[in-house]
């Protein structure tokens, strides 16, 4: 095959993949395969909300969704402690989330902010350092549903008993083409991250 022929084949494949991801329910089907359904929620010693980014003191949409998910679990009485994670220069993502949780009525004594974790693996480690001395081994883990499998595995690896409490960063039932592409992107990114963690020996 000539160079042009190879490029045309790659282009046709790319175009077909784009059409399938944007205009058919393929991303929704992949989500069903890659993301296991969450088990029922159970009470735990703490709720741990993983970081998802902030620009200065403005949380990203994902970060806000997860923070609100953690607050909702706390207000349902599923755990006595709420740990907000997320790095960044002052104010860190964790600090911004704690302020939000306080504004939403969570008592300051129940809140813990830790901005040391830069990766999911780091977050598992620092959460263990924060919670294990307080006897908090069983945690409700709040993160995006695509991210949950890897995050839960990393948290179990440091010693936690994990109850997944996923928040949909990207809706798994997306119908609009743009939303389906966002779902496909989130799934692709997570599959790459899982592969990287496996190769690096973290999982």
């Amino acid at each position, binding site marked *: 095959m000539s160079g*042009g022929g*190879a*490029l*045309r*084949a*790659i*282009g*046709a*494949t*790319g*175009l077909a993949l784009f059409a399938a991801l*944007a*205009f058919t329910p393929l991303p929704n089907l992949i989500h069903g395969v890659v993301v296991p359904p969450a088990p029922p929620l159970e009470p735990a010693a703490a709720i741990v909300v993983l970081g998802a980014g902030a620009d200065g003191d403005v949380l990203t949409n994902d970060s806000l969704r997860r923070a609100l998910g953690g607050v909702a679990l706390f207000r349902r009485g599923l755990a006595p402690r709420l740990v907000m994670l997320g790095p960044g220069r002052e104010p860190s993502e964790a600090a911004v989330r704690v302020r939000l949780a306080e504004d939403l009525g969570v008592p300051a004594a129940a809140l813990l902010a830790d901005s040391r974790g*830069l*990766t999911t693996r780091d977050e598992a480690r620092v959460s263990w350092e924060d919670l294990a001395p307080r006897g908090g081994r069983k945690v409700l883990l709040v993160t995006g549903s695509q991210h949950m499998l890897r995050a839960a595995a990393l948290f179990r690896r440091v010693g936690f008993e994990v109850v997944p409490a996923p928040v949909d960063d990207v809706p798994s039932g997306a*119908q*609009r*083409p743009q939303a389906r592409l966002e779902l496909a*992107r989130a799934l692709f*990114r997570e599959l790459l*991250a899982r592969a*990287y963690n496996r190769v690096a020996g973290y999982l």
Partner: protein
Amino acid sequence: METAFILAVVGLTSLGVAPLARRRARRGLRSAAARALETIGLGVVFLFLNVAVGFCLALIARLVVRGFVSLYLNDDVTIVALSALQALIVQWWREPEAR
């Protein structure tokens, strides 16, 4: 519904512009489609290269600088746009000069 709407709009504008484009055409539609596929193929190659190189650079930076460089930087949507730009430039570079 949304999918059908978007495809209908794009189909309508394509049909509307086709007669105008045909008057100024310098090659057949089949050849133009082949060129478009080549450009998209180049875009895919550049996207793959950019993400792979970015991934490696982030890992090297973590080792060398001892600072933290997020692998998620390679997920930025501007990489797709810039890969498309790279593909367009290379494709037009390959084309014979227009008179």
